[in-house]
């Protein structure tokens, strides 16, 4: 047998025992405590609380009281925050950065840890269920589920991101800049023929409504993207019996989805807030060029 066929038969042999356990996970979270009238505490909600509390205590334990000369734990957290700052500052712009950075860091760390905690042994496999005739235990109400594998969890995150976008953009950019950016005529008055200018104004106005629709749809796509990736990954893992290749893929997907959610939030903020920096830099460059030429 060549090495290629040997490798494929090895993979097939590894996968064979797992085809017997091909069950998936339920897409909606199971209820733990039911208060009646639609108000419940679901298992993903409960897991979200517990992991968030653990995260907060971990960070507080690492940092303690922040000092100028950092302790080891503080240095770890500081290096993480510095890396995120270098990533987000060019996107969001200097004006919106102090206001936007705390929520971006929170989103990244929250979504990252909650995505990764779905890979810990025991998640989705401990709980209440039924035993069928063959003695095999089918679980119907797991105790621990990741927070982002419930559509409600990701809708909550997306709505918070949208609310933060609204507040930051109205505070930094102002209503006039937003309306100009959405509906305003962006053609140069000197360079377009006189008869074309009003037609372009009408075109930009109509395009503005399409822009408003795409903005309104943002929380929906943000939440469905995160939910689809996390829940789909969990379903894949449980259905194929935690095949090890998919486990590493889920690690990567968890990191990338956290990064993507945060990057998209920052890009939406930066689209409206990141104009002023370019004009200031151009003015400074022109002034320094003029000064250099004057010296010569």
């Amino acid at each position, binding site marked *: 047998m060549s090495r290629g066929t040997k490798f494929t038969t090895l993979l097939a042999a590894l996968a064979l025992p797992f085809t017997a356990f091909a069950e998936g996970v339920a897409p909606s979270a199971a209820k733990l405590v039911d208060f009646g009238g639609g108000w419940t505490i679901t298992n993903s909600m409960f897991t979200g609380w517990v992991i968030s509390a653990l995260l907060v205590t971990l960070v507080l334990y690492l940092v303690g009281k922040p000092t100028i000369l950092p302790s080891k734990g503080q240095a770890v957290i500081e290096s993480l925050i510095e890396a995120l700052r270098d990533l987000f500052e060019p996107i969001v712009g200097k004006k919106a950065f102090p206001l936007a950075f705390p929520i971006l860091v929170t989103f990244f760390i929250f979504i990252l840890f909650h995505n990764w905690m779905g890979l810990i042994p025991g998640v989705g496999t401990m709980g209440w269920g039924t035993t069928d005739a063959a003695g095999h235990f089918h679980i119907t109400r797991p105790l621990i589920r990741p927070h982002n594998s419930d559509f409600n969890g990701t809708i909550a995150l997306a709505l918070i991101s949208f609310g933060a976008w609204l507040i930051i953009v109205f505070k930094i950019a102002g209503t006039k800049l937003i309306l100009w950016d959405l509906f305003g005529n962006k053609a140069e008055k000197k360079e377009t023929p006189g008869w074309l200018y009003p037609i372009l104004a009408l075109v930009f106005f109509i395009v503005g409504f399409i822009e408003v629709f795409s903005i309104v749809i943002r929380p929906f796509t943000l939440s*469905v993207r995160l939910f*689809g990736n996390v829940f*789909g990954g969990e379903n894949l893992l449980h259905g194929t019996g935690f095949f090890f290749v998919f486990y590493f893929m889920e690690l990567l997907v968890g990191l990338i989805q956290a990064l993507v959610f945060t*990057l*998209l939030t920052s*890009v939406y903020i930066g689209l409206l807030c990141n104009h002023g920096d370019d004009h200031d830099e151009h003015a400074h460059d022109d002034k320094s060029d003029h000064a250099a030429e004057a010296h010569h």
Partner: protein
Amino acid sequence: MLNIIAEIQGNIASAFGLLGAAIGVGLIGQKAAEAVGRNPAASGKILVQAIIGMALAEGLGILALFLAK
């Protein structure tokens, strides 16, 4: 010919959506790799752009997967 097409089963709506998403993500990856090849020093910035583009392209595919009946 129509008999053959009529035999297709499964979730065709999701299939087309995901096909588009996969092709889109692949195209973005191709152009990102080419851009890094032309300018290796800009690899970090190109990575950020590529990930944003892939997220937007993949998001609609995930929408098709989970919302099609």
